């Protein structure tokens, strides 16, 4: 088993009230995880529906690695206007990279240059029996 620190909820949608309380840890079986967590591995709980196109939905817990270099198409968590948001990292040949939501309702694109990328997604945990996001 591995304990991975779970930070507050991450809105994958419009900005919401940020959750203040520290959420402790998620404990995961290493075999399920498929990799060995480092001190830079952390988890965030997804809020909202902006990543629906990647089948990441409200209530999911994403496992992320800080400091990993994102590649085109990777899902990343970034701080946008002081909110943790989940987006797709897009870098087309020679262009400056930007972040894109995976839901046509969120059309805004964010240039990466000045943003803090919190981490690159390396795993996803879906809670059993959770009620659907919609």
């Amino acid at each position, binding site marked *: 088993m591995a304990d991975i620190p779970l930070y507050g909820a991450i809105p994958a949608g419009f900005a919401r009230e940020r959750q203040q309380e520290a959420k402790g840890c998620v404990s995961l079986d290493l075999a399920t995880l498929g990799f060995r967590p480092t001190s830079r591995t952390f988890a965030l709980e997804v809020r909202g529906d902006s990543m629906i196109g990647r089948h990441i939905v409200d209530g999911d817990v994403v496992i992320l690695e800080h*400091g990993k270099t994102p590649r085109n198409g990777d899902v990343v968590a970034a*701080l946008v206007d002081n909110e943790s948001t989940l987006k797709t990292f897009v870098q087309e040949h020679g262009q400056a990279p930007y972040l894109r939501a995976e839901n046509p309702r969120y059309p805004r694109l964010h240039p990466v240059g000045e943003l803090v990328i919190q981490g690159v997604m390396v795993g996803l945990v879906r809670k059993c029996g959770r009620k659907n996001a919609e």
Partner: protein
Amino acid sequence: MTHLDADAFFAAVEQAADPRLRGKPVAVGGERRGIIASASYEARRFGVYTPMPSVRARQLCPHLILLPGDFDKYEQFSRWMFSYAYDFTPNVEITSIDEGYCDLRGVRRPVIEVARTIRDAIRQALKITVSEGIGANKLVSQIASKLEKPAAFKFVPSGEEIAFLHPLPNRWLPGIGPKTAARLNAAGLALIRHIAETPVEWLSLVLGRAAPQIHRFAHGLDDRPVVPASEPAKSYSQQETFPQDQTDEPFLEATLRRMADHLFAQVRADGRSVRTLTVKVRYNDRTEDQVSESLVEPTDLETDVYGRLGLMLRRAWRRRVSLRLVALKLSNLYDGRFGAELPLDRSAQQREARRRLADVVDRLRAERGRDVVMRGHDLLLRQGAPDPTPRGLGP
């Protein structure tokens, strides 16, 4: 030795997290506390510094963006900031949320180059700046990092410690606070050079027992090693093993409160605050459970956590089995006191009164022993541990 110190850390993290705040005067300070805990360099240009009452800061800087602290976020950034040092060496000593030492001697690349790489990686990934000081020991590297903030990068080559230290005012030496500095100044020892030139016996008239250590510091000597922690941060902890297994909740809660008294006295003596509490229980079959909780803001007062301890004990004590041991740990260390030093409202005044009381209690206990001041839980504990109830009749 390299000392790493983030610049205006809380305010810088807020600016990193929200590009709209960059280049603007930003301060972090609780409305609750009414005190500025961190001010961006843009705010400092208006004369805002820490600690300062928020009201005063607003007068000096009408456009000041005053934010409440978001300590989860600061701890997240802190963890990542130090992870870039851990890329090169396990010999990292994190001394507070935004400061630490690393010993890079074992690294094959030149120390200056490695220190620069760490600094650049932090700026690139986290959009905050750190100041670094490199020197022969902790003393020199720490002063070097703080001398020319922000974004300082100061290397003091070995052999040049004296030339570096001696022209500086005495307050740069660790252990010299404003009061001691004033006494030294009155004695004509305004500079570190003056302290170095004064015989220890004379120095002890002003500095007491600290004189030999400070005299050595004034000569640039410091053999304190880097103490790498297996867990990422230092903590204060205490545990108690019972001669007989316990099930009595009031007794156990009182035991935790007494531990809190003891640990917070240490926290205050070190001029620190803490944010995270962990209560651990060990059952009579040696298995353990624990819970951790973080406060909204760091504190240095046990009275702020008394109410939490009973709840945490009940949450940690999951099995209906008697206990062999309880432990309390305080972690997530911050430098300085976070309570209002300049009381502005009633709750701040009450906190300030409790803080003064805590100081008096600390002093009395240091002079005359623990029992000179007894709180409710001390009286309960004085009655001794209750007779153990039969096993299995837990909470």
